[in-house]
């Protein structure tokens, strides 16, 4: 059943909450400075309007969420 913990997790308390929240939260990354369109068809329509090529980032899972 539940396994014995040998490499312990930090203790979560009112005192450690803020520190652990910051530790868990990812730092801002530069890819977020790109105004990604999250739907392929919408991107295709935009590319037609603006006469630009599509740059498509296709991942297992949504790249703007969890991949």
């Amino acid at each position, binding site marked *: 059943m539940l396994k014995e913990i040998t490499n312990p997790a930090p203790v979560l308390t009112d005192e450690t909450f803020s520190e*652990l929240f910051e530790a868990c939260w990812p730092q801002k990354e530069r890819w977020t400075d790109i105004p990604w369109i999250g739907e392929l068809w919408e991107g295709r329509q935009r590319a037609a309007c603006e006469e630009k*090529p599509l740059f498509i*980032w*296709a991942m297992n899972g949504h*790249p703007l*969420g969890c991949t």
Partner: protein
Amino acid sequence: MIEFVNERFIPVAVNNSRLQRQADDEGRFLRLISWQGRYGYSFEEAQARLEDIDHGLNHQGLYVVTTEGEVLGSRNRVFPGGKASVHGVGSDPDRFLWMLRRALEKWENRKTQRAALDIEDLAYRDPTFSWTEYPEDGLILHLGVRDLPREVDTRPSGMKREAHNQDYVWFRREEVLSMVPPDAAVGDVIPMPDGLVRRLVRYHLADYVRGETSSWPSEAIQDAAMTLTVTEKTPEWVDLRLSGSAQLFSEGSWYEGACRERGLDASLLGYLRFDRRVERFARFDVVAVGSRWGGTDYNVRQEDLEPAPIGIAMTIAGQEARDRTAPHACQRRGGLEWYFNA
């Protein structure tokens, strides 16, 4: 590079897992691209394979294309034997930039590109997937997950040490209101509704640190409980302290049988503020900390199966377009119903 992409391209980020199986024009468009860009078929050969949604092959990659699916550049090409040429996005920025520049050269001599305003809205979308429904009047949380420092750390440097991931958590308006009874008084301890607890633990207390993983099956929940204690109440707001714990355990066979179980033993703590005037949360900061062990086929834990600390943080999501991305657990066939009825 960021400015270059923003100025010269229409950047699109999509969930390939869904699109490669979609039986509609959007899915066909993705397959048209990937059969060329990832698998090396000609435009005509790719067109002949558009209806195949049971191919069982992965179509993820980076592609530069015209509106008609003519591939001008790509990464993650698969060569004979099935091995992709590049693992991971941006693993070689110079080669990536070279690909983009070369694609722009090809763009000047492109064979296809629709004229402006010539592409209609999709009239049909594969109904086996879910196509709504950002809960405008509900609660959207942005979630971050990563490994926490270890007393004994044998992880190699690089991705396996620095990896982190994210997701979004959705609650509908009626679910938000169910968390805060109107007559709640200071000192009251309110159980978090069972369905919301199950959603949080099955779909969001999972080891996504290095890559997507399966949600927990219902029977994996060994124990899970969350309570909200009213700590302050005024005519304008209600402050609550969330506390809880979750123990999850599942058996299976991953990494060709090298891993037979996975588990998570976590505690949760959070601070919430409910604005009574607009009936919305103004603060919803929650941390889950605990130990995870094992792995699944896609979360890259095959050499890191022993118990180790993991941390998950959630807070109210922003208002940018990407903050409307659906939770990972929704993005499967019948996903929304599955998600909201955990």
